[in-house]
């Protein structure tokens, strides 16, 4: 059979600008590239000379979809540097804020970006013509997540209320009443969403991945924990750079993250789910078992179901946090800058997001390093594409191309995030 090259110049329904190139030579698959050509954006360099106070606001601008993740990793890294611990209701409020972002980001991806692939629609608006209730419900569910972020953060995109040490202002108990009612509805809607995603025609595909996620002694991970994997990794966050290396592969002009001496790994919903299933709420575990999606889950196309399960967990967890909430005396812990280095790693909707800062005695940033989840998944995305194309080379061209796009979207890639450090190649043929 003759090889059919695939070239998608601008991948759709992903965040940012990326392209896909699949090249055959003499019927043999020769090249698979998930290219990133989004303009480089020099955030690590911009951070030099800025105050530690500005890190949450500046890094939020790396990504409009997961700004909370950037604010959380930045705040935790700075607190690590200054020896500050944020606990009690302030810590709970951070988890609550993260719940909002997970709901908003996951439902956006499930319903508006990913589901149309499974059902053969070009987009969610087309899908809405034949499944109006479903899309309406999903938009409503996404809105609950956004409302929660807006309530705690001030606005949905680039929230203004997060600071190193806590918040600028904390809500009164009664400020949470309305969103609590919304969340009760959302929890039910999320159960239905899990069932609906599980009913989608999910392609059969499995690989033996190394999954990496945070693991906390008592909680499904958001902000804290050790970095663990299913293949023996178990390290503290500040050991990240000793175990994760970036390599330059000749066929792609992008830096790929891998685990030293081992190789590619996967971060994100599948990794968290497989490594922390026992930390999910009883309801989330029960619904997951009911639809038959339980660890080990090695099919990346099932990530859409896992995202829905995590959405359900986030609703459940948000309700638990609100129920036990008593406002703290102060909206933030006092912070005294000193010359130090701090590390932070939190679970963005797409996976672990690592920050490291070195600051001087006035809290001015001397040096910064940021490793976003999409950069870490890139090597696995290409690995999936290799196997997928080889296994499906006889599919009609258009169908194979669409399947490849869908496989990339399994990872909910955030290319804007990745480009602050990925190298750039513009291919024009």
């Amino acid at each position: 059979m003759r090889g059919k090259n695939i070239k998608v110049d601008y991948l759709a329904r992903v965040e940012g600008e990326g392209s896909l190139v699949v090249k055959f030579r003499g019927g043999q698959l020769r090249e698979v590239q998930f290219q990133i050509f989004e303009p480089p954006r020099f955030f690590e360099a911009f951070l030099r000379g800025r105050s530690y106070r500005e890190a949450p606001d500046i890094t939020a601008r790396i990504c409009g979809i997961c700004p909370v993740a950037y604010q959380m990793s930045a705040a935790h890294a700075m607190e690590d540097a200054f020896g500050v611990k944020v606990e009690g209701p302030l810590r709970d409020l951070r988890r609550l804020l993260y719940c909002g972002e997970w709901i908003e980001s996951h439902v956006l991806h499930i319903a508006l970006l990913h589901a149309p692939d499974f059902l053969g629609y070009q987009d969610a608006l087309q899908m809405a013509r034949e499944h109006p209730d479903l899309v309406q419900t999903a938009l409503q569910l996404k809105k609950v997540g956004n409302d929660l972020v807006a309530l705690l953060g001030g606005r949905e995109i680039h929230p203004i209320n997060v600071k190193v040490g806590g918040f600028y202002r904390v809500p009164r108990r009664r400020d949470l009443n309305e969103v609590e009612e919304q969340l009760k509805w959302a929890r039910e809607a999320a159960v239905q969403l899990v069932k609906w995603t599980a009913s989608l025609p999910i392609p059969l595909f499995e690989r033996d991945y190394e999954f990496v996620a945070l693991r906390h002694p008592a909680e499904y991970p958001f902000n804290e924990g050790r970095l663990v994997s299913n293949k023996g990794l178990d390290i503290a966050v500040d050991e990240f750079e000793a175990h994760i290396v970036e390599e330059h592969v000749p066929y792609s002009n992008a830096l790929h993250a891998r685990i030293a001496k081992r190789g590619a790994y996967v971060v994100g919903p599948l990794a968290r789910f497989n490594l922390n299933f026992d930390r999910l709420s009883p309801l989330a575990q029960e619904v997951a078992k009911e639809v038959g999606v339980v660890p080990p889950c090695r099919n990346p196309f099932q990530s859409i179901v896992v995202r829905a399960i995590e959405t359900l967990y986030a609703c459940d967890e948000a309700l638990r946090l609100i129920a036990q909430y008593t406002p703290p005396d102060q909206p933030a812990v006092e912070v005294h800058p000193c010359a130090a280095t701090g590390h932070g790693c939190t679970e963005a909707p797409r996976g672990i997001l690592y920050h490291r800062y070195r600051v001087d005695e006035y809290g001015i940033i001397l040096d910064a390093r940021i490793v976003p989840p999409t950069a870490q998944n890139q090597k696995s995305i290409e690995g999936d594409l290799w196997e997928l194309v080889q296994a499906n080379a006889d599919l009609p061209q258009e169908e194979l191309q669409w399947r490849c796009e869908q496989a990339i979207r399994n990872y909910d890639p955030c290319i804007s995030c990745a480009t602050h450090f990925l190298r750039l190649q513009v291919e024009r043929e």
Partner: protein
Amino acid sequence: MAQATTKPKLAVWKFASCDGCQLSLLDCEEELLQVADQVEIAYFLEASRATVKGPYDISLVEGSITTPHDAERIHQVRRASRYLITIGACATAGGIQALRNYKDVREFLSLVYASPQYIQTLSKSTPIHDHVFVDYELRGCPVNKYQLLEVLSALLNGRKPNIVPHSVCTECKRRGVVCVMVARGTPCLGPVTHAGCGALCPAYGRGCYGCFGPKETPNTASLSKRFKQLGMKEDDLVRAYRSFNAASELFRRESESHER
């Protein structure tokens, strides 16, 4: 392929940005399907893999120009568009990316990238209006989604967008928020910053940090004097004016006047 239709064609274009401003459109959860009813979404890659060829009636442009390729591409977008609207601080004022305008971009490259010689980038991040004619500029980092709907609605109904150029202070007073600078001595860019966010930061007890860029005729010199009385140093002033709207003329001049 999308169906043929006589509805106005809407396109959304991305340059160097975080995607947040175009996401504002998808964040219009209650209005999104109504918007989709009024226009044909002809090119919006974040939302759809189906694209319709131009020309387009309305083009929303997000992001700033930072590569030689994008400096070309914006001209193609302009040629294909009846109305071109920039959305957000990057497209309107060069955005956070314009921080490179004050430094040597080659030094940046070597800090972030392993082999800088392969990177194609311009030494400055510039707003869209430096390259092509822009019909309307919407401020904010990110834009306010209700202002975005207002601009779309105005264009669809052949009227001017009803968006006022006054300061954040005005919004603060309307909202009944106690002034953080007068009452608590917290430095706040509200007096010189364009309205649009609804005085968010003061309402949360922090000073405005200028997401919407300069208002019309801001008195930045006077505000800087007050900031110094409140204990800010020259370095702090440079940073205050040099963030998400660093390249907008009025903030740029003020930040430079405090540089040693």
